[in-house]
């Protein structure tokens, strides 16, 4: 195939989802994510998939968990206010280990905020939004093409680790159109869920396995099992046994920690000899790389670290870099969310400066360049 196309980030999500084998989408209209639902409402029925517009985001999130239990790769898309409403059932998906993908196109906040303009205000909500202490995987693209790729990765990660995975976009990436050359869909790598190989009567849906990921049966294929949001034992039934609860909660939380290195992805630019590190993600990293190049042109040894997976946070990378750097600049469209993580991971062994913006405008390369010059 390999023909160039001019598409938006939201369209790239829809195409990536289809390429990854998503065949169920439930959503509720919300700016700036609606084009994802619109595109999938057109294409899913033509690909043998199902689309449904639910009554709200609580319902959308519940519906995709239901569909996923039937064995279908499922997705929803929303923006901040809807993401808040989804938190309840995101927690349910985490607790019950049902794979699914949530796309959050961030817009300005707080509250209804700025529906049509970008922000990165949901970074911490993604990590800590649902109650009870869940763990999270979230990917954050910086281009339309990467949006396509990371959508596929989200589906694969959800299936691999059996959990809800968040694709965290911002309005700039979602609505921007770029020329992309998409790969042949047939060649897209699809991770299948681990299925039980035992007899139905021997099946333990929440079995403690060597890899911490229990095999998952689809509803309707003969493995009749119980799924509950209550703390449960390996059989899937509620338990109030302290030891079993401890084992469950630690395993759920711990499976991301265990596979942290496998999941964590960063991109480095000009870091080998860098003295000043710009830490940026999503659309802001486009401004950041522009500023880094300009700084280099002016003889300042600047570099960029871009977390592709913002959760789990790339602790090791920051920690390793902290001693070789003069300063870290964290540029983000909020009043300081990732900067706290950078402080934590670096143990503040290095000077850390934030460049923030919450007025609905993308941080410009000049703003970051000014900060680079300030600390150099």
């Amino acid at each position, binding site marked *: 195939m390999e023909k160039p196309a001019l*598409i938006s980030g939201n369209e790239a999500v829809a195409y990536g989802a289809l390429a990854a084998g998503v065949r169920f989408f439930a959503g509720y209209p919300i700016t700036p994510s609606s084009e994802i639902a619109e595109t999938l409402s057109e294409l899913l029925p033509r*690909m043998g998939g199902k689309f449904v517009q639910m*009554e709200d985001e609580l319902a959308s999130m519940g*519906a995709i*968990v*239901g569909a996923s239990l039937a064995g*279908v790769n499922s997705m929803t898309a929303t923006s901040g206010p809807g993401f808040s409403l989804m938190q309840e059932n995101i927690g349910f998906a985490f607790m019950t280990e049902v794979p699914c993908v949530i796309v959050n196109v961030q817009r300005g906040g707080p509250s209804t905020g700025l529906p049509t303009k970008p922000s990165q205000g949901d970074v911490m909500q993604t990590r800590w939004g649902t109650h009870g202490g869940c763990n999270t995987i979230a990917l954050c693209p910086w281009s339309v093409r990467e949006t396509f790729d990371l959508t596929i990765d989200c589906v694969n990660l959800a299936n691999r680790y059996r959990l809800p995975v968040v694709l965290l976009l911002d309005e700039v990436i979602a609505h921007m159109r770029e020329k992309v050359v998409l790969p042949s869909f047939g060649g897209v790598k699809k991770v299948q869920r681990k299925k039980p190989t035992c007899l139905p009567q021997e099946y333990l849906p929440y079995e403690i396995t060597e890899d911490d990921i229990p095999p998952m049966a689809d509803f*309707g294929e003969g493995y009749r099992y119980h799924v509950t949001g209550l703390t449960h034992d390996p059989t899937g039934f509620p338990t109030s046994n302290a030891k079993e609860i401890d084992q469950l909660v630690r395993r759920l939380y711990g499976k991301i920690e265990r596979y942290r290195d496998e999941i964590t992805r960063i991109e480095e630019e000009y870091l080998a000899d860098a003295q000043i590190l710009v830490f940026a993600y999503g659309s802001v990293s486009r401004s950041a790389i522009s500023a880094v190049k300009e700084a280099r042109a002016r003889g300042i040894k600047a570099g960029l670290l871009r977390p592709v997976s913002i959760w789990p946070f790339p602790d090791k990378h920051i920690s390793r870099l902290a001693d070789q750097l003069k300063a870290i600049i964290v540029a983000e469209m909020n009043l300081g969310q990732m900067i706290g993580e950078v402080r934590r991971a670096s143990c503040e062994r290095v000077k850390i400066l934030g460049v923030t913006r919450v007025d609905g405008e993308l941080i410009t390369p000049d703003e970051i360049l000014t900060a680079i010059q300030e600390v150099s």
Partner: protein
Amino acid sequence: MGRLLKYLRLDKFPTVWCAGCGVGIVMGCIIRVVDKLKVNPDKVVIVSGIGCSGRMPGYLDFNTLHTTHGRALVFATGLKLAKPSLEIIVVMGDGDALAIGGNHLIHAARRNVNLTSIIINNWIYGMTGGQYSPATPRGAFATTAPYGNLEPPFEVPELVRGSGASYVARGTVYHTRQLDRLIERGMRKEGFGLVEVLSPCPVGFGRRNQMKSAIAMMRWQKDRAVSLKRASKMNEEELKDKIITGVLFEREAPEYTQEYERLMSRVKTRKEIGKREIQTGLGEIHEE
């Protein structure tokens, strides 16, 4: 009876329900109907929300899903759309279905997805200790209505009928044979079916409302329930304080999953492939 035990997860017994609770009676009706209709248990899904009714799936040897408070119907909608071959029964309580899940209830009915839903209405939040619900009668006492409830209750069948359901019925756990028939008919019906079941909660409701024993509550059901057939011969005065049971409403209406299947075959066979499908390689998926 012995034949029905295979549908139960007997190792999970005894149940969490109090003596005199009606949820177990409804559970009995469900397995009798599944058995009568000879539905393959592998295809049966029981979905519930939170509360006393929410625990029912755990005792039934089907595919069982105990979801979040009020959301049972949305999980069920996703399941049914993704795999229409599943036979899905949704069990909810009155607080569950009518308060926190009220929006989902009316929309599931409107969408008319082929689900059989049962609201076990005991007029109270039982599991949390007897707070008033949207089904609690006006004037009744509850832990959050110590001076009597000020709010009027929902007329559940009217609500669900007005929302677009294909089938609406009401029964009581006292009249179990009737209840079997009502649930069976709901399962046979294409489209969204609702059975409201009046069910006693002697601990959460009766105790505070002059019906201390389960027997007193059952007697109340016996005295108040009037079948639709009998009610048609009664005058307004006689019907005062009565509760009409039976198939209250039934109609033929497009069912969502079938409509969607039709839509899929309609658009799938479309000859022309859109520009964006060519540009982006989606055409290849068509050919798969």
